[in-house]
């Protein structure tokens, strides 16, 4: 009986007091082994390897064998890499702000009980079916001068369309928009699920107390769906930070490096045009790792305190 009680009180349905048997321990280790081997060989070990590689430079055979001292790290404090970080920041900011605000502006009306909303909800999530490269290819065509319906519309109202992927401030925006298009559809799914869980009686009570429109949304609905919003912000930040396909397909970092983000820079230095600069790419990878960990800490430490879990 004591054992059963212990089982209920602790999370895992296992009691610490029970006897430890070598057979069971062996089974546990055997069961953990496939996952641990995979994660060990392809996640944990490569982390140490990345640190080692970051102190190397590439020899004439394309192997990262020459000691490079601190040179790969001092290359992180140049204006060029500063630009890369700036592009990453701007890209991520745009994707997170628009990629969460736009689906929110759609999810709220779509959550109403009006005819046609169910079909529209499904339709608006269709872009989530696109991978990064598929979305990029389609948006390249959407903006291709030979057929662009977007340019046609702009000309109709008397605006000369810019070179979407070939002119400097526009290219980064275009790449970010293709990203928003996909992650926004996913966020719509997330926020829609959050809104579906909102207690209508609470909203109705707030309405009777005189809350309307924007006030109702900001003070009542938004706090109630804040876990969904928080989740959308976290996942969107991470996917924006890790975006490669959009940049590589749409602009290949150009024009003039103006769309070169951190992950694109890693890809470019290590794998493009026979650069083979694995050392510099690894050093930049470590920056990505630090940024990722810092973001996770900030998001979970600061933001989650304001999130209302019910």
């Amino acid at each position, binding site marked *: 009986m004591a054992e059963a009680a212990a089982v209920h009180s602790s999370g895992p349905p296992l009691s610490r007091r029970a006897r430890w048997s070598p057979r069971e321990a062996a089974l546990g280790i055997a069961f953990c082994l496939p996952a*641990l081997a995979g994660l060990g060989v392809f996640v944990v070990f490569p982390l140490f390897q990345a640190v080692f590689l970051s102190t190397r430079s590439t020899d004439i055979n394309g192997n990262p064998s020459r000691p490079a001292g601190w040179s790969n790290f001092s290359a992180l404090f140049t204006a060029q890499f500063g630009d890369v970080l700036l592009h990453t920041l701007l890209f991520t900011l745009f994707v997170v702000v628009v990629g969460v605000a736009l689906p929110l502006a759609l999810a709220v009306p779509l959550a109403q009980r009006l005819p046609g909303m169910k079909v529209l909800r499904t339709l608006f999530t269709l872009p989530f079916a696109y991978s990064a490269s598929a979305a990029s290819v389609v948006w390249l065509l959407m903006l291709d001068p*030979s057929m662009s319906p977007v340019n046609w519309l702009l000309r109709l109202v008397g605006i000369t369309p810019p070179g979407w992927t070939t002119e400097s401030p526009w290219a980064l925006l275009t790449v970010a928009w293709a990203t928003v298009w996909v992650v926004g559809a996913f966020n719509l799914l997330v926020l829609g699920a959050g809104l579906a869980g909102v207690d209508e009686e609470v909203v109705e009570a707030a309405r009777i107390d005189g809350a309307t429109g924007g006030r109702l949304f900001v003070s009542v609905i938004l706090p109630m769906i804040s876990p969904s919003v928080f989740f959308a912000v976290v996942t969107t930040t991470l996917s924006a930070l890790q975006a490669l396909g959009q940049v590589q397909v749409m602009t290949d970092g150009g024009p003039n490096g103006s769309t070169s983000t951190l992950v694109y820079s890693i890809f470019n230095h290590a794998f493009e045009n026979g650069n083979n600069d694995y050392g510099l790419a690894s050093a930049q990878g470590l920056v990505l790792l630090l940024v990722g960990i810092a973001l996770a800490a900030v998001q979970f430490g600061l933001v989650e305190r304001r999130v209302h879990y019910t």
Partner: protein
Amino acid sequence: MSRTADSTPPAVRRRRSLNAPSRAVTAATYFWLAVAAVALLFPVLLTVVGGLLPEGRLDSSPPELFGGHYSFGSYATALHEKVVPLLPAFGNSLFVGLVIMAAHLITSCLAAYALVFVRTPLRRPVFWLVMATIMVPYEAIVVPNALFVRSMGLENSRWALVLPFLANGFGVFLLRQAFLQFPAELRQAALIDGCGHLRFLFSIVLPAVRPSLTALAVWSFLQGWNMYFWPLIISSSNNSMNTLQTGVFALQSNEGTQHALVLAGVTLTLIPTLLLVVFGQRWLVRGFMAGAVK
């Protein structure tokens, strides 16, 4: 008119205006949704219809999508294209998606079971190690992994496409959370009946957590199917190693002027994902949001 409105009791009047939004608000709502639908869904229409049009119909601005002669000709061309044939790429993508899915299910089930139901030594450190791997952005370690897999001489093998992704920390986490919900009495009862670990796992635990297994399966398949960075660098020297994702990019950069061909290729990448988005939304939401729920 104003007199009848005044004669309505205030409470009733207020209630009515609350429950049913005014016509103007409803009209504005539909207007906003219609504008957004045109802007956001036109690319989807363009993809699906454009791939069915004869080449050249899409060369005017705006493209003429309707009233044409539709056929699957561009699909046949894309599947058997000379430089970047998408048929083998389709096979590779299916291989990647399905192998990663199966591997995640197997490795995650076993590890999660060992962490929850077995007195495995060092359960806590093992769990935290697994959780820590979730925090590592894949792009931070892609260089050492690429050098390692290339050094193994796997460059012409499909296995090179999946090797680094056979285990996943999120999968272990997801199934551990599901297993923890499992009633402890059942394990006790099964033990008393002399039910061993393997039978308990396969005939009692797994059937009970089928929703979580489905969610993980969908999530893992999509991870594999949509993967881009890894196949791009591993298949860079060999077109027969393309997945659909890298194949569509190659098609776009080689035959970028043949819009219908490119769009047919894009539609091929959408086949499983579109089905999931239309018919499997609940699994998508459950799988992808599992990390958000404690």
